[in-house]
């Protein structure tokens, strides 16, 4: 596979991500795409830990660790400071988890993109508060076990559709990406970097620890999320122009669920119900993109 980017790495070995960490892979690809003329705003998330304990940093670019709810606000401030310095080449990137994006940081994010601040907001999504002990977030999917949705109390609510929420702000660029599709991820990151205004990337990043999966399967499961239509790869320009970037093989959702410990309690009926929801979402996306089912 060729990513059409330099071989240069912008992070070091020795970071303290779990074995098979999808978020580490996501960061690596993003950095390869964006290069080192960037500043990263890092609200509380797994990556606050992965980046290394003080005084270490695994990243070769400037990072500002910020409070949980402030990803959008700090980025706005940093961008303003760069403007004052006359720095036009540095890209401001907020790198937040799903908790800091879907829940706690949503207000700051919504505010920043409503002002169309010129930055890239990346949410690497591992579908729960992982580094604090796997608590459910509004990104946790229907059917999942977490420590706050344990046993028979598994989450019976839909995952928030964050991309659609951002699209509703009519920002210049919003896209999904997935660690199992690096070419697509790199292309989207570069595209985002070339656009002025607010850009949002929603990157699927598997979590072996929180999802109760074998570490060696974290890419396979990420790929399966796309192939089952659970996590379609698409992009939206200016809040209206939808493009589906990859037509999946449309495997049944059970292929995705059976690989993961967090879904082991689901019955056939549950899976059928989920399949219906996924089909519904996919049909809706096709309509928005003006495409037809295969």
């Amino acid at each position, binding site marked *: 596979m060729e990513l059409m980017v330099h071989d240069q790495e912008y992070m070091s*070995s*020795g970071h303290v*991500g779990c*074995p098979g960490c999808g978020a580490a892979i996501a960061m690596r690809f993003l950095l390869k795409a964006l290069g080192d003329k960037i500043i990263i705003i890092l609200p509380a998330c797994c990556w606050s830990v992965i980046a290394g304990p003080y005084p*270490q940093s695994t990243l070769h670019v400037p990072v500002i660790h910020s409070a949980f709810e402030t990803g959008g606000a700090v980025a706005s401030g940093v961008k303003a400071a760069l403007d004052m310095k006359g720095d036009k080449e540095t890209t401001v990137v907020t790198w937040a988890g799903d908790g800091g994006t879907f829940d706690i940081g949503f207000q700051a994010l919504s505010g920043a993109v409503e002002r169309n601040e010129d930055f890239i907001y990346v949410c690497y999504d591992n579908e729960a508060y992982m580094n604090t002990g796997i608590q459910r977030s509004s990104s946790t999917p229907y059917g999942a076990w977490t420590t706050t949705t344990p046993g028979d109390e598994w989450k019976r609510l839909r995952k928030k559709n964050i991309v659609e929420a951002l699209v509703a702000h009519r920002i210049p660029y919003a896209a999904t990406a997935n660690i199992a599709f690096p070419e697509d991820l790199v292309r989207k990151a570069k595209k985002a970097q070339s656009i002025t205004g607010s850009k949002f990337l929603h990157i699927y990043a598997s979590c072996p620890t929180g999802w109760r999966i*074998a570490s060696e399967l*974290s890419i396979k499961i990420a790929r399966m999320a796309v192939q089952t239509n659970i996590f379609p790869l698409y992009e939206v320009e200016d809040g209206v122009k939808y493009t589906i970037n990859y037509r999946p093989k449309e495997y049944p959702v059970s292929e995705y669920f059976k690989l993961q410990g967090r879904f082991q309690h689901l019955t056939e009926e549950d899976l059928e119900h989920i399949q219906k929801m996924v089909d519904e979402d996919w049909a809706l996306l096709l309509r928005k993109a003006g495409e037809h089912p295969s």
Partner: protein
Amino acid sequence: MGEKAEIIIADHLLIPRSSQSTESNKTGSWRFLRPRYDEKTAPCSAACPAGEDIAMIEMLTTQGLFKEAWDTILKENPFPAICGRVCFHPCERRCNRGEFDEAIAIHAIERFLADTAARNEFKSSLEKQPERKEKIAVIGAGPSGLAAAYFLAILGYACDVFESMPEAGGVLRWGIPEYRLPVSVLRSEIVRIEDMGVRIYTGTSVSRDFLSNARGEYDAVFMGCGHSRSRKLAIPGEGLEGIEEGIVFLDRIRRGETDAVKGTVAVIGGGNTAVDVARSVVRLGGKALIVYRRRRQDMPAFEDEISMALEEGVEIRELLAPVRIDRAGDYFTLTVQAMRVAGEETDGRAAIEPEVDKADEIVIQKIFKAIGEEAAEEWYNPAERGKQRLTLGNSVLVHRDDGIVVAYGGDLTNDTKSVVHAVASGKEAAMALDVFFRKGFHAIQQELAAYMVGNGPSLSMETYMKGRRSERNHHVVAYDEINIDYFNLAARITQPRLLIDERKKTFGEIDLKISANLAIREAERCFNCGLCNQCDNCYLFCPDLAVCRDDSLQGRHINYDYCKGCGLCVVECPRNAMVLEEEGQ
């Protein structure tokens, strides 16, 4: 107000700043599973009697490295142009891609490479071992004898090949029809063997005394005289004038001595000779009827040949055993007994028994016998006695009382009478003789086992010569060890062929050339089971940046200081060229 805001640049920011890398954290200590590069054996190469490194050949082809791919074939098989045409390609039956969509057309790519080599006059880059003092006589310049001489020459031995016919090639020259193997193709393959220093004495028959007198002049003899005498039907009327042996008929055609065939002809038998005779009859204007005592699916002839024969209008009458032949004027009456299936033989073919009171008569103008061949002279067959005797996968070695070793190969020893099995026996005998000269007769069997492709019985000369292939794990890659997420369905190429109407009129080659474009596209379908094709997935997906590119042949190595042993690289390797092992094993 109105004043320009003053930009305050703090010399000493009052926030803590990180100053060190994380590289001092040796996260490799977390690991309890250890990934490692581990190239394995593709099922096709294990199924190839010549043990060709097919997965590598296809990989080189995709890169447009046709010369290198051709050289890779030559390491294991002297006849890419011949086997690309006439081999029954058992490799394709074991191709893992067959479980995904369709097997790779390995034979078509092999032929393409050989034709490309011929067109561009490639010279092979084979390395020969230093010259040895021992000299070997090869009796018979058929595929097994030529292969033996070729591999012995590679191993540094001087070889004299004796051939009774006026030209070398054996069954390739006098048996297999021109529409499957043009003579020019055969000749150029033989020239390459002669260029390696092998001397071929054509028109030189060898008598029984040769073996007894060989000592002094030769240190070993390879017997590859083949099966050239038709077996008898043993039925009344067999000796009538006008009843011909199929193999003699084929021989006459290849000498250019045949006239047109008129009327309907019966060909008795179900092997490749029978099918070749029937298809030749069609080309000479006759109508051919194959009479076989078992069912079509039990015929030992190769399936592709049978189906092409049917396309060309050959008729197969199955479950009929000839019982007598009578002649009346220009016609023969072939009396046949109907047979029926009664269980199964050990080799999977139908066991048959006569169906009581069901006989029939077939009236035809000519009869060819082709129920199989045997050695033309009894002494061609492996001697039963000697100081030592060893039966290997494709050959038999006899250590004579006078000290020389006689190796027997080709049809004399092989159950499957095919060109590629003949090549396998020549190679096996060459390696066995080399071991004999270096270490003695007792060492042969054990020594050769180390050079098997997969679990054998195919042997690899490249491995024997300690080439890169010797690092390969013998484990044969199974379909479910391939990560099929990385492959898309794609149809196998369709072999372009002469139209059926043209085929019936001429002995011109049926299978036409394929373009480089098609060959590359077909080779790209190959999974390259067990081999690294530098796809870089291990490097790309490593969350710990522990896969490092380097200048080695592997192109990369794992930095175990940081590898946490997550195993992603091993699972994401599309072709099972890596392995994950428990730490400390």
